[in-house]
């Protein structure tokens, strides 16, 4: 019986463009380059999430402190730059980071799908992959959808019927007083925690940050960071739902029943 076999070799699944591009483009074209960009933008987003959550802790100090903090963000670097300019620069940076992170995620996902054959008939016995590492795309998509809703809800107020521009405290309480919104917020932040559990470790490998002296700390860092963000972010809707934080704490606001009618502090500041 003939036992010889022809080896024709596989066709490339991602043929390289024949023309070379200028170097930043050439770098981003490669999967390794895209992962580097994902890790850097992931770090930027982690920095944002971290300071955003720390700042939001002011909600526990009451309306005045919280809204004062919101005002501070608009005033950063003020004599050097006009009001809100720094905030806008940060926002543009964030938008760019999100755009690159999502584009790289999408295009690497496509790359992996093209490289994958039809898959195994037997079920895989995973040794190292975790639920977190295997669901990065999905937790990422949930976070992205949440960010969009969050902007409509608390930045533009279009998704928040009780929205008052400038009174972040009251908007936050009004938003979480709607149970479905609070639940969505909890779920989305759980997704973020899971995303960070893998991402905050994975980024070290993607950036080539590896040293036997501190390698073990990379996973400790990811767990600690994800847990810290989780505790802070999950506390906000829970605090409103349990009444720990409520609109009554905002002395500047007049309430009738459950409806907030006026916030004198806000109205004095913006006649």
């Amino acid at each position, binding site marked *: 019986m003939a036992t010889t*076999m*022809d*080896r*024709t*070799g*596989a066709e*490339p*699944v*991602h*043929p*390289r463009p024949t023309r070379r591009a200028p*170097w930043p483009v*050439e*770098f981003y074209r*490669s*999967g*390794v*380059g*895209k*992962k*580097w960009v994902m890790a850097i933008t992931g770090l930027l987003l982690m920095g944002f999430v971290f300071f955003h959550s720390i700042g939001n802790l002011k909600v526990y100090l009451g309306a005045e402190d919280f809204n004062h903090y919101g005002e501070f963000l608009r005033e950063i670097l003020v004599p050097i730059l006009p009001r809100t300019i720094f905030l806008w620069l940060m926002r543009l940076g964030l938008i760019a980071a999100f755009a690159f992170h999502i584009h790289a995620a999408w295009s*690497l996902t496509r*790359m*992996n799908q*093209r*490289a*994958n*054959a*039809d*898959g*195994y*008939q*037997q*079920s*895989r*016995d*995973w*040794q*190292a*992959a*975790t639920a977190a*590492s*295997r669901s*990065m795309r999905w937790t990422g998509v949930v976070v992205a959808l949440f960010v969009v809703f969050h902007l409509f809800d608390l930045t533009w107020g279009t998704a928040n019927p009780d929205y008052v521009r400038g009174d972040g405290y009251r908007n936050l309480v009004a938003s979480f007083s709607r149970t479905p919104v609070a639940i969505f917020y909890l779920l989305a932040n759980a997704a973020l925690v899971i995303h960070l559990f*893998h991402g905050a*470790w*994975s980024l*070290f*490998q*993607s*950036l*080539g*940050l*590896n040293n*036997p002296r501190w*390698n073990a700390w990379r996973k400790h860092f990811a767990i600690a960071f994800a847990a810290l963000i989780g505790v802070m972010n999950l506390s906000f809707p829970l605090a409103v739902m349990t009444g720990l934080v409520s609109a009554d704490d905002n002395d500047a606001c007049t309430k009738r029943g459950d409806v907030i009618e006026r916030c004198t502090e806000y109205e004095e500041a913006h006649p």
Partner: protein
Amino acid sequence: MHVTLHVWRQAGPGAPGTMETYDAPDISEEMSFLEMLDVVNERLNSQGREPIAFEHDCREGICGSCGMMINGQAHGPERGTATCQLHMRKFADGEHIYIEPWRAKAFPVLRDLVVDRSAFDKIVEAGGYITAPTGAAPDANLTLIPKDVADAAMDAAACIACGACVAACPNSAAQLFTSAKVNHLNLLPQGQSERYQRVLGMVDAMEEFFGSCTNHGECQEACPKEISIDFIAYMNRDYVRAQLKNRKLLSQD
């Protein structure tokens, strides 16, 4: 012992395949996994049926020919061994064993459990060599290499190119293989002159055929040589550096 095999059978490249079931009684626990397949094949042969095609050569874990997905794990349930070094005592009497070829677009199935791994050759061709000096052989120990460096390079050089890393990877990425082949040269003084050229060439060749790494770590668990994903980080680091280096200053640091 008595086991039941569920084996992927495929007549040729591109042909449709299916899982076939084979009863395998009277198997000794002392047999290696490949010896067990030999016995099954002899029985198939004597019944005039087509034996199960699989690749093998050294049968001692050094050539990288063998390799199959066994019960959801590349090279089966034992850590740090190739399929040829796996023994039947690792399985329970009466167990159902699922056997499939490596699966990735870059590894087309040739027949049954045999895949074409020549995409690996393309990666090695793109930089897995050093420019040999001509002339007389240099004196031994002329180039001093710290022990840690020699050990790390040796760990990378242990790669037998079996393809388990790709087979185990949910993304069909070949990062562990490529990083081993990059680093066993890039870590050593002798590999320095082509260091950045090498990592660019080999990563580019890799990405024509394979997926991208998301740091699951499945490859490291599947590797019969227990090669560490640390090498993937070193390769990423060298790739980024290679993009930035002024090649005229390569001999300065």
